[in-house]
């Protein structure tokens, strides 16, 4: 009996050990210029109005009127230029030489139709753009009127769900057949049952024609499988393999790994309506108590960076001279005692007039980094004398409990540039009437945000945004922990891929090709 038991055990151990040996990547025969991408999310729908990130940033089929530079500054794309005629009216002039994949020219009429269709399908576009009417003044001029002044209209027209498609994309009763865009690639085939997409090169693309002949996107929702498929050579490019394998993949011959930061920040929101969070000193103490370097190194395995303000460095409107709250446990303890919290009964938990500080931190599992990060914060708060209980639940359950008001802290990974505007994130999270859940009211911050949203001059917008960021650092209504990292892994032969932080998770470009 014992003999057979040990035998089975040894086979199991040996084969699992075998798995850690990184065997070299098999050179896949396709010497030709084709790229196979392992996508993170299951692809069930390729309507640009709903899944714009896929059709614009990954499949490169559609493009939006306004583009952005890597530092989030706006730049012309399908719209060569735009200017604001009056507070609610804007005029966009289109590029001349742009053709849809079906050979029809890009004109104002098509842009009007495409924008109105997107607004009808996706309610978010209306709340971003606040568009009331879109008029085609002439072949190449589009006049857009907004319901109320929206200085962020151009920024919101960068949003991938507003990307432009031709009328021939839909059948007579409006059902999407195939997205016909203006991008560097044409959609060859989309297999709804397997969720795989195949694109071929758009030879008469208005920009530099891509060297890649074909582009294929396969949905591989499991991080381990993405890493295995890359090592096998079945895919050439993928994003977010398991963070802990980045080191190992880097060493695999024929593969390379890039760690980048994207416009998303891990933050802890607190219920400022309740004690102890209404006390600034307690909030500061908590912020000092968090060892951000250790969290990035040990929880995120280096895929991300310690956060100072809400915006990551490299964004046009990031306030570079914020100091943040570097790890300082002594200062944290000192601030706590100042706030009247000390461990009087010696049970290791600080208390105030008999009330021990026991709080709950909620988070959700859809972002793999969050649960272990919550446990790390729990341990770090324990050193400070705060007993933190972590609760993992579905993200909608979390926001539901928070909206009822009976909550302490919740941790999430908040996108800071859903649209590349310096005021959008501040407005949604810190503007007093928008954040009843957190309960942060600062008239100065509200005023600055209002001004920023109305201001026309970009530079003025950036300065106002920076001022708000400074106040937020002083008042710390929300504790930023780390900037969200994106790990991109690809074969060494994949050439000049440049990570663009404005992307939702990663963005391909027409420059990407295969080294001969």
């Amino acid at each position, binding site marked *: 009996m014992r003999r057979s038991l040990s035998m089975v055990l040894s086979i199991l151990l040996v084969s699992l050990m075998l798995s850690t040996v990184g065997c070299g990547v098999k050179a896949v025969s396709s010497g030709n210029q084709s790229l196979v991408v392992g996508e993170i999310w299951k692809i069930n729908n390729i309507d640009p109005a709903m899944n714009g990130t896929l059709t614009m940033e990954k499949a490169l089929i559609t493009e939006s009127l306004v583009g952005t530079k890597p530092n989030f500054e706006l730049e012309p794309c399908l719209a060569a230029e735009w200017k604001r005629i009056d507070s609610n009216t804007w005029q966009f002039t289109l590029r001349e030489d742009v053709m849809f994949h079906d050979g029809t020219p890009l004109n104002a009429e098509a842009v009007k139709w495409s924008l109105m269709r997107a607004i009808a399908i996706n309610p978010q576009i209306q709340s971003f753009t606040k568009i009331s009417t879109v008029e085609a003044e002439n072949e190449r001029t589009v006049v857009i009127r907004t319901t109320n002044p929206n200085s962020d209209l151009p920024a919101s027209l960068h949003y991938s769900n507003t990307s432009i498609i031709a009328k021939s994309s839909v059948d007579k009763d409006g059902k999407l057949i195939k997205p016909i865009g203006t991008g560097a690639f044409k959609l060859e085939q989309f297999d709804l049952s397997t969720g795989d997409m195949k694109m071929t090169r758009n030879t008469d693309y208005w920009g530099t024609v891509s060297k890649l002949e074909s582009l294929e996107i396969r949905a591989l929702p499991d991080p381990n499988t993405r890493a295995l498929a890359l090592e096998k050579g079945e895919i050439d490019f993928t994003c977010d393999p398991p963070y802990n394998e980045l080191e190992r993949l880097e060493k695999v011959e024929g593969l390379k790994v890039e760690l980048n930061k994207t416009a998303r920040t891990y933050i802890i929101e607190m219920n400022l309506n309740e004690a102890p969070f209404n006390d600034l000193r307690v909030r500061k103490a908590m912020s000092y108590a968090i060892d951000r370097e250790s969290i990035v190194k040990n929880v995120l395995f280096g895929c991300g960076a310690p956060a100072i303000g809400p915006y990551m460095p490299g964004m046009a409107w990031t306030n570079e001279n914020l100091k943040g709250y570097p790890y300082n446990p002594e200062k944290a303890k000192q601030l706590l005692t100042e706030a009247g919290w000390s461990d009087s009964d010696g049970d290791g938990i600080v208390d105030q007039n008999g009330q021990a500080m026991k709080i709950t931190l909620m988070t959700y599992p859809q972002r793999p980094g969050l649960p272990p990060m919550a446990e*790390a914060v729990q341990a770090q708060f324990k050193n400070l004398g705060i007993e933190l209980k972590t609760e993992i639940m579905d993200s909608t359950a979390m926001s539901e409990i928070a909206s009822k008001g009976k909550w302490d802290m919740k941790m999430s990974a908040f996108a800071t540039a859903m649209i590349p505007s310096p005021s959008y994130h501040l407005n949604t999270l810190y503007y007093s009437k928008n954040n009843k859940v957190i309960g942060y009211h600062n008239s100065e911050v509200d005023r600055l945000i209002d001004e920023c949203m109305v201001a026309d001059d970009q530079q003025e917008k950036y300065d106002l945004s920076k001022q708000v960021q400074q106040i937020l650092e002083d008042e710390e209504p929300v504790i930023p922990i780390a900037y969200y990292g994106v790990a991109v892994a690809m074969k060494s032969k994949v050439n000049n891929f440049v990570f663009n932080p404005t992307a939702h998770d990663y963005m391909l470009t027409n420059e990407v090709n295969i080294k001969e």
Partner: protein
Amino acid sequence: MDAALVANKRNKEVVVRSVKRDKLLGFSSAVVLIIVLVGVLAPLIMPHDPISVSFADKVKPPSFQYPFGTDPLGRCVLSRVIQGTRTSLVAAAVIVSISGVGGVLVGLISGYKGGKADSLIMRSVDVMLAFPSIILAMALIVSMGPGLGSVIVALTLVHWTGYARLVRAEVLTLKESEFVEAARAMGNSSSRIIFKYILPNVIAPVMVMASLDIAHIVLSMASLSFLGLGAQPPEAEWGAMINQGREFIRTAPHVTLFPGLALMVTILAFSLLGDSLRDYFDPRLREGYIE
């Protein structure tokens, strides 16, 4: 009349084999005893604190200090496996016993009564089987809050259907057999027939299913953790630990390997114990003497 005594060598091993069968019973009950003891004495025999996070020694391979290595948050996997014995096995035991007893009862009644009652019960079993248990788990989390409590209730409400169907099938065959007709002829009430005559014959397959069910339950707790519905951190539960080690399977396989092996050894012990107990009590299978 001197009989030519011809010893038959085949019979020599007979003596050896029956002794061996008792050894298996001894071995499996010993292992089960050890597991229960580990669960009971968990706090005493744990080398380290199962929930203290220390990144310094994150994901360390098995060593003398950490026999099972450490998990991504630097906690000793051995201590968490020992602690997990208590949470996972108690939860699995509760679920198996409640759903087992419930399922067997329903199966007995439905199989024996037949007709309207049988189709009503069996169709409600179909509804329960078709109804995705995940929705139930999520709904329960709203009313009972996340954690093991709602997981146990959710899995119990779903697992009984397996037992009901298995037992009903057995009863359908058994109720036609002569000894049941004889029992009925002797004027026994149906409940007496069900429990005195039919139930003992149904125990064998139910025991097999129950011992395997423990594995299914801990593994479904792992997939619930995968969906964020399982045990709450930092609680040490085998299913959650197996799931947590999933992304580290290539760089640190020990994180998921050891809780998995603990589960395997437990299932091995419970199943073998189940088998040998069944053989021990079931007269026909004792290869006994034919009257």
